[in-house]
């Protein structure tokens, strides 16, 4: 029991830090650069990604292992995964809209955009490619989402700090964001060298 939890936690930890899906696999770059000007926006977006990734990755595991694999339909995995993700985001948005207006304004509006977030599809593809068990997949989905949110918040924090600084002509906006992303990626590359998941 303790051993199982510690291996679950090790995978969760590596998904957040050493194997950060955004900074070591470069997935989910568009919203990372596009929606990281303000901490408040990026918090909502990040939370939405955590929500969707935590649920869709295990759901896709079930879909793959209990339907696609037994029926010999693995080649449809791409379509099946993205459809499940799209359906999940749409349903969640509907539910949130009914439940609370303020929650919808803070989090719900990001859900439709997330359907085409590479990180979320990537997490589902990885969990198949790396042959995770269902339990491992839950750790990976939750950790991957939190890691993505962490990187986004860090980026937004840095960009808010330098928002009023004078930058060389042409480097404002995307240019400086890319350079920051490069430096952050370098820092996380060092993480990868320090620890590799079992």
């Amino acid at each position, binding site marked *: 029991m303790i051993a199982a939890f510690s291996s679950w936690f090790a995978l969760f930890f590596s998904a957040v830090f050493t194997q950060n899906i955004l900074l070591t696999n470069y997935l989910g770059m568009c919203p990372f650069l596009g929606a990281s000007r303000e901490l408040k926006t990026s918090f909502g977006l990040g939370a939405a990604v955590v929500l969707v990734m935590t649920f869709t990755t295990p759901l896709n595991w079930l879909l793959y292992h209990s339907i696609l694999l037994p029926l010999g339909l693995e080649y*449809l995995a791409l379509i099946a995964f993205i*459809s499940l993700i799209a359906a999940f985001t749409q349903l969640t948005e509907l539910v949130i809209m009914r439940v609370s207006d303020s929650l919808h304004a803070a989090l719900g509006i990001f859900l439709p955009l997330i359907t085409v977030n590479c990180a979320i599809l990537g997490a589902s593809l990885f969990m198949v490619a*790396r042959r995770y068990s269902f339990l491992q997949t839950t750790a990976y989905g939750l950790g991957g989402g939190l890691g993505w949110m962490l990187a986004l918040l860090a980026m937004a924090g840095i960009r808010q700090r330098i928002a009023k600084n004078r930058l060389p002509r042409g480097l404002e906006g995307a240019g400086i964001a890319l350079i920051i992303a490069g430096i952050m990626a370098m820092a996380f590359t060092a993480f*990868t060298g320090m620890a590799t998941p079992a």
Partner: protein
Amino acid sequence: MPSSTSPNLRQRLAPVLFLALLTAAFLSLVTAAHLASRPIVEQSRLRYLQRAVLEAAGWSVPPRADELADLFASRARLLPEEPDGPFAVVQDPQGRDDRVVFLEEGRGLWGPIRAAVAFSSLEGSLAGIAWIAHNETPGLGARIEEPEFRRQFRGKRPPLKLAPLGRPDAGDRSTMQAITGATISSQAVLELINRAASRFKPSLEHVAPTEPDMILSL
């Protein structure tokens, strides 16, 4: 009132129906393409397997598919399937040695790295390694494909460990040079070789060498 409920119902059903039709249309298109291309894909999968087994055993593999199949048929002997047992025994190009080939898997960055690992039954050392399939990043992890990287394993005696950075020690028979910037891929290769080696030791007894005198004479 049927007149008011039926358009309402139709309004609710129309999107669902549309989506179902669209899904059916595209799924049948993709399935047709998949089925039509399956024999070709199976063929090329078999070719990659045969090529990797021959390359690991030290052959330079002919580019043409039929020549490859001929070479494989004449030089390789498939072994009965056993858990942890070797996949095939392949004669080396000089005809002096039997290479025992194992199929082994390592955990790469994007997915499994599948390899054929060959050992020399004459010398009991690594004879070569070749990849059946991998998904490593082009230009980084995928550099495990480069001949310079793969050549380093000939004559090595596993278990291997990674050579310390910046100190290339070509003479050391128990270390492996990693690829800069591809820690996970290098680690995966190291581990799969060591696993194959631990399977090789016990199987030495099962594979009767073709010319026992040669081993005795050593």
